[in-house]
């Protein structure tokens, strides 16, 4: 939907209905409920079975005497009978939140389960936790039973074909079956129910893709109707570890540090929000410049002050000749970007500030040659593409808005733009790739995948066909999603990675070694082995190579001394990570 139109405007007939409803609701009583009682939510029914299409409906009542709101829904992953989260399966609730629920009021909620891959026969469970603004909560159990196909009843013999006897933890084995009917004729298209025993040993998909979680012995069972076969697989330890040593860093506590970009022997870091220090509070109105003449210990060499309260992002063009920094919360209300000349990398000079049409604020940016991709703050604004062929006189040449939500971040590679479009999901645009005839001045949507909201950032790895997508959700908490775009027209969520109690931030991928470095706020830097085929929960597969929480344990993210990692970048063998509290930390990945 490449427009600037906003969604969900009531049609005139809807206005009539709403106006009437308002008159009733606003002036009505609360059905005799005692006003001195607190609000109390209740789902009716208390348990919902989705239909074969994955749809269902439930009512949310306020049985108490006081208004509750807003009511947000925290939705668990879709879990199979073994308790494993099913990759690529998500339940959505419409509306996604309830603005307010007065005493005695009822809201109907529609439930819909979507899955990137076919679900295999069997029961699935999802939990919905409804949480009101004052902390009142209630839980709904949602169940889906996927029936066996009609072909299953005709199977008289089933055999797992050429299974491996051993497999390494986290490696994916493609299992197949041979199914025969009572006449010994092969059957194709039989829906096989796969399972792993014991369940904690692994996960197997509807197509027989198996991944093991732990070392030891596992038994894989394939069943169709009353017929089954099983094989034993010995799981071996993945044994991937990465020494990740803290070798240096900075202590820059006057402002919160935001994004980081390293080029040559210089690092550039933005600043964020308002920090209360021992003196007056300071805002994120500077770009800091650091010399890496001693690579392990960045040395602050100066800063550029701009009209902003947050310089959220900084990017350096690949040739190192210019940089772009973003403005939010400027005094003059114009925001926009500042383009810097890096002829002397340690002494950037301002080429100019560009604000026209960018007054809402710029949150993130990406430079691809002579084009700058900009994330314009706010619903309905979306992306702008600037031509910086003449950096002193940039001009807007392209724009795109994906609808539903605000845009948060952009990553451009090989003619594809990956838009982290928050609740609209991951949106892939052709900006020169050829898949859809797009260009920077005419971005064309290729495909999108909703995931489960709060899509924050993305990194595309062409060699593997995977996009690593960050979900910044502080409630569930968020996780890293792996999206397979080998068919770019049909992206599929295939795996995820999560860390208990914390949500991810930005990523950097060492594509030579297949190591994903993920900033994880209080949990520091996570180094994850992403080699090979990826399936299911990566955090259960022995793929964590290092987890570096370099600050004080149990400290809050923006507490002095705490770990609060924002963005990593691998550069010349060192991993630099911006930290909101400290500035930059330098880590040495081992071999």
């Amino acid at each position: 939907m490449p427009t600037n139109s906003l969604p969900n405007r009531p049609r005139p007939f809807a206005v009539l209905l709403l106006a009437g409803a308002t008159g009733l609701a606003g002036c009505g009583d609360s059905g005799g409920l005692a006003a001195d009682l607190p609000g109390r939510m209740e789902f009716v029914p208390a348990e919902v079975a989705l239909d074969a299409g994955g749809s269902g409906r439930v009512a949310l009542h306020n049985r108490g005497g006081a208004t509750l709101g807003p009511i947000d829904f925290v939705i668990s992953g879709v879990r199979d009978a073994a308790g494993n989260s099913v990759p690529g399966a998500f339940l959505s609730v419409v509306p996604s939140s309830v603005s307010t629920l007065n005493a005695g009021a009822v809201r109907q909620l529609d439930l819909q389960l979507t899955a990137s891959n076919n679900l295999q026969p069997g029961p699935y469970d999802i939990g919905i936790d409804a949480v009101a603004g004052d902390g009142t909560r209630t839980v709904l159990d949602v169940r889906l039973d996927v029936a066996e196909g009609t072909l299953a009843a005709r199977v008289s013999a089933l055999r797992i074909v050429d299974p491996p006897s051993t497999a390494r933890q986290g490696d994916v084995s493609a299992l197949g079956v041979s199914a025969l009917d009572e006449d010994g004729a092969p059957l194709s298209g039989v829906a096989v129910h796969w399972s792993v025993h014991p369940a904690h040993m692994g996960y197997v998909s509807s197509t027989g893709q198996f991944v093991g979680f732990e070392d030891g012995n596992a038994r894989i069972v394939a069943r169709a109707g009353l017929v089954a076969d099983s094989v034993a697989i010995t799981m071996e330890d993945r044994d991937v570890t990465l020494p990740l040593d803290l070798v240096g860093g900075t202590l820059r506590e006057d402002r919160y540090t935001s994004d980081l970009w390293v080029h040559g022997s210089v690092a550039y870091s933005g600043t964020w929000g308002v920090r209360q220090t021992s003196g007056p509070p300071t805002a994120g109105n500077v770009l800091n410049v650091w010399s890496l003449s001693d690579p392990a210990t960045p040395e602050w060499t100066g800063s550029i002050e701009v009209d902003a309260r947050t310089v959220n992002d900084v990017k350096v063009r690949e040739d190192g000749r210019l940089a772009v920094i973003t403005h939010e919360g400027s005094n003059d209300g114009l925001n926009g970007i500042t383009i810097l000349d890096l002829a002397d990398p340690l002494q950037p000079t301002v080429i100019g500030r560009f604000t026209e049409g960018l007054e809402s604020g710029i949150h993130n940016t990406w430079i691809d040659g002579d084009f700058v991709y900009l994330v314009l703050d706010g619903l309905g604004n979306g992306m702008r593409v600037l031509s910086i062929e003449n950096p002193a006189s940039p001009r807007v040449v392209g724009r795109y808005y994906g609808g539903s939500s605000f845009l948060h971040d952009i990553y451009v590679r090989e003619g594809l733009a990956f838009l982290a479009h928050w609740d609209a999901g991951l949106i892939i645009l052709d900006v020169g790739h050829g898949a859809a005839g797009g260009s920077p001045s005419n971005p064309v949507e290729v495909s999108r995948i909703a995931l489960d909201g709060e899509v924050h950032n993305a990194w595309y790895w062409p060699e593997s066909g995977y996009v690593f997508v960050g979900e910044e959700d502080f409630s569930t908490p968020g996780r890293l999603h792996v999206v397979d775009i080998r068919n770019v027209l049909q992206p599929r969520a295939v795996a995820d990675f999560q860390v208990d109690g914390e949500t991810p931030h930005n990523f950097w991928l060492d594509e030579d070694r297949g190591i994903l470095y993920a900033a994880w706020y209080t949990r520091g830097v996570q180094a994850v082995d992403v080699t090979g085929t990826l399936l299911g929960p990566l955090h259960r597969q022995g793929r964590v190579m290092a987890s570096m929480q370099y600050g004080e344990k149990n400290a809050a993210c923006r507490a002095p001394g705490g770990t609060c990692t924002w963005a990593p970048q691998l550069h010349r063998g060192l991993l630099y990570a911006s930290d909101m509290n400290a500035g930059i930390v330098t880590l040495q990945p081992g071999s």
Partner: protein
Amino acid sequence: MIGRGARPTSPAVHLALAAAVTCCAAAGCSDPEPRSRSSPTVYVTSGFDDWILALDASTGELLDTLHLDRRFGEPDEPHGVAVDPAGRHLYATLSHGQPSLWKFELPGHRLVGRLDLDLRGAARIRILPGGAVGYVPDFWRSGQGEVSDVAVVDLEEMEIIHWITECPAPHDALPDAEGKRLAIICPGSGELVTLNLDSRTQGPRFELGGMPMNAAWDPDPESGTVYISLKGVDSVAVVHTAGDLHAGGRVRRVPVGKAPTQLEATPDGRRLVVANRGDRTVSVLDLTEFELPELHRVELPGEHPHGVAISADGATAYVTWEGTTATPGGVAAIDLASGRILWSREAGSYVLGVAVTPDSPSA
């Protein structure tokens, strides 16, 4: 300037607005007995701290902090704030990320509602006298002249019941004291657009120029007069919206400080308080005189005065200053009789909106 005259509006508009007004007139929508409190409370929003501070109106003492940090790690920018006339609820807009309208119960500050607004940038929240309907304009700063909306919100159900689409980047949409007229201020086109809420027709439009930002109706509803800050020409426009629209002479300008923004009239209609964003001052104008002479020019402790609220007894104005990218913002209480600052305090970064509960300090 002469207005462009009335334009018809759709029946849907009429019905939506009529329903709202009717509801406000019904007893069921309002609390007949405003709650008692020892002292009014002042609320100020900090756009870059993602909070609302609740302050004792008499002393500036911090009573509570309401966090509107919807997206930790992202500035959400609380912007406008208002208390309904009965003092039962506090409303605030978030203008960044997913713009939204938040509703808190008073007293106690229990969060009871949050409405996502399909707006590019939610500006102020203004409330009809009965307290049942609010107006939130879409101050679409990046719109480059494209028209954007005013959301009409049923505050009981926290639902959008209508969109008003009149002009580019409206910043303020203010009903008059009787809920009969609505003034929409359009910086993007330099206009004042009026709607007649009671007769359900469009009122006159006025081309004001000078980058109008905010409005204050004269408390006397018979006058039909609205005061509008003209940020670009350092003055306040006095616009007479009632009577013959083609008689001319219905708009005049009164100079104030530099780059005025919010302004409010005292309930008795004797004073107009104007925050002059460009020169860290507040103008107190005498509305009893035709020329609106400036009685006081009060210098604030910080840069960029922004929000104005006035106590129910009309004696005190509460004025915020945004601060700068290098200095904090805050709020000051000004004695309107003397022009003296009674108290002031810092309140965060990018301090914008301000509201005060209707309790009288002497109550």
